[in-house]
């Protein structure tokens, strides 16, 4: 077990998988010479060379398309989009091509690749370095979507994503890149399965289902509520597509109260899907409406510290929402 930040864990996963499998390669803007704008690929190019760690032109559609071409030829590419906000030029390649290759060829072709992108806000990144884009991709059959929140999860899930036979969108909460630190296993011991949620804290009164940066916030809120006599169960989804419905339903059946807490703006966010599914399947066990706790429906997160603070969920806001739900 080594002590690692989340971004170091990402880098360790890439390095280990590249060591393990010569088909694994990395491409994107600034991933080579610079080692990534967040240093997620630091030291990889000196070790593996300029082909396996390829600096691409500033053109996201072709980053995705070239990764697809490599995957179709048997490589296991890991493409980096510098910020999730800039993934949209690649949207056509991801949704119309990468996600549909297996289905449209009736299983003759597959496209195993990973597209990594730093996501989320709270770093004064403003409108174009803070967006939460997961809902766009969770809507797409053929894609898997992962959004880890601890160094151990980031490493274990990235290794699993690289080995997965299907395309994976791997979103990394940039606010946690250096803020999250913890013990991380080496090699095969680090592997984690996709599609499994983590029950972060057990509780009896309210189920708080979350992911990404808000896992830590929700945990803090749960500790605060515990002192008030409200027992909160905190679940980190970790993988959003496919998401762990049985773990969430199990918790719902125990508590009868569910809040889904997500950083994206409220309408059409991935939490809305979780809420709808749980309301439909768990209705008989519910003592209160399934509640979404999300960011406001404004285009994106403003630059001003005051406006950013107003946009972001925090411990106070999450605790207040969970308290209201417990008292319903």
């Amino acid at each position, binding site marked *: 077990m080594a002590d690692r930040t989340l971004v170091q864990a990402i880098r360790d996963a890439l390095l280990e998988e590249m060591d393990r499998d010569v088909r694994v390669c990395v491409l994107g803007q600034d991933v080579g010479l610079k080692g990534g704008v967040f240093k997620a690929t630091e030291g990889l190019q000196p070790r593996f060379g300029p*082909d396996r760690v390829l600096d*691409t*032109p500033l*053109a996201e*559609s*072709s980053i995705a*398309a*070239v*990764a*697809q*071409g*490599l995957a*179709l*030829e*048997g*490589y296991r590419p890991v493409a980096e989009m510098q910020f999730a906000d800039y993934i949209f*030029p690649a949207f*056509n*390649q991801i949704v*119309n*091509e990468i996600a*549909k*290759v*297996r*289905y*449209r*060829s*009736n*299983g*003759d*072709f*597959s496209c195993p690749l990973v597209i990594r992108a730093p996501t989320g806000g709270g770093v004064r990144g403003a409108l174009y370095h803070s967006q939460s884009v997961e809902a766009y991709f969770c809507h797409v*059959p*053929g894609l*898997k979507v992962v959004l880890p929140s601890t160094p151990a999860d980031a490493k274990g899930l990235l290794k699993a994503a690289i080995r997965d*036979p*299907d395309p994976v969108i791997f979103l990394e909460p940039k606010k946690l890149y250096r803020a999250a630190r913890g013990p991380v296993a080496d090699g095969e011991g680090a592997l984690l399965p996709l599609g499994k949620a983590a029950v972060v804290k057990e509780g009896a009164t309210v189920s708080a289902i979350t992911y990404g940066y808000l896992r830590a916030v929700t945990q803090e809120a749960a500790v605060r509520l515990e002192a008030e006599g409200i027992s909160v169960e905190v679940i980190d989804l970790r993988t959003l597509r496919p998401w762990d419905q049985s773990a969430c339903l199990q918790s719902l059946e125990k508590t009868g109260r569910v809040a889904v807490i997500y950083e994206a703006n409220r309408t059409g966010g991935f939490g809305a899907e979780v809420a709808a599914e749980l309301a439909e399947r768990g209705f008989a066990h519910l003592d209160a409406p399934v509640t979404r706790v999300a960011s406001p429906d404004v285009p994106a997160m403003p630059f001003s510290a005051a406006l950013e603070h107003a946009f972001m969920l925090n411990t106070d806001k999450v605790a207040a929402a969970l308290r209201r739900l417990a008292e319903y």
Partner: protein
Amino acid sequence: MSTPAELDGLTRERVLWAYGIVLRARYLDDRRFILNRAGKLAFIISPRGHEVAQVAAITALQPGRDRFCLYYRDFAAALACGFTPEELMLSAFARAADPSSGGRQTPGNFGSRRRGIIIGSSAVGTQIPKAAGIGLALKWRAEGALCYVSFGEGATSQGDFHEGLNFAALHHCPVIFLCENNHWAISVPEARQVAGPGVAARAAAYGIPGVAVAGDDFLAVHAAVRAAAERARRGEGPTLIEARVLRLQSHSTDDDQRAYRDPAELEAEAALDPVPRMRAWLLAVGWLTEPDDARFQEEVAREVEAATVAAEAAPEPDPSTLTRHVYADG
């Protein structure tokens, strides 16, 4: 006039093989149109006018070794790459045994892993940067294979055209970019689609050869693609070829170009149909005789009839397979 043993390095046998593919494409397409008008086929995209250019290009390449990213009008190219008439009819009827997609995609999205035909989609231009990525993999593998990618002139307006050519040129990827310029993107003419002196001229911006050829000239298209293939296999990088062709049919069976094109121009273009022109050329050089041609055409007509009967009788996909192949485990 004496009959040549070879023309531009091509044997009589090879060229007659290509002519046979061109004939099959034309006969199949005619049959598909009748079946569409009879309500038996939902949707067809015709290669009419493109056949000679498509087959000439593939004849210069190595199906089985090379990769092919075809687009939806590449019906004759798909035949030249190894698809059989029956397989293409299975696709037209959206039958379970359609080898490209099991009836999931509209006919024209060709794919076959064992033949190196990379499954396509209907999204215009997406195959262009994908071919650059395939080319990068082929360059890394250094086995001398190349990737051929084709598209219409409408696709050259997409950002993916620029991104793909830029990437392939930067990395000297073994890719042949072939634009089948038929001057019409549904109803939008080339004059409102392509700025500047034409598609081929754009190659200069990437520092790669750009070649424009008459798409009804079998030898010219073949020579341009062969030169591009030699360059790619030598590790010198991509080439952009613009084959100027005619669209002798509407964009698709859901379009009627008589509604937006000049009747006199359509009539003039019909007289320039490349299929009879190829036939006339082969008769002129003595590689084809009238009786041989008649026998060929009879054989092709029989083959197309048999393919149609077999495909129509083939079973539709089982509805229970709707949810299969979304992921590896399903």
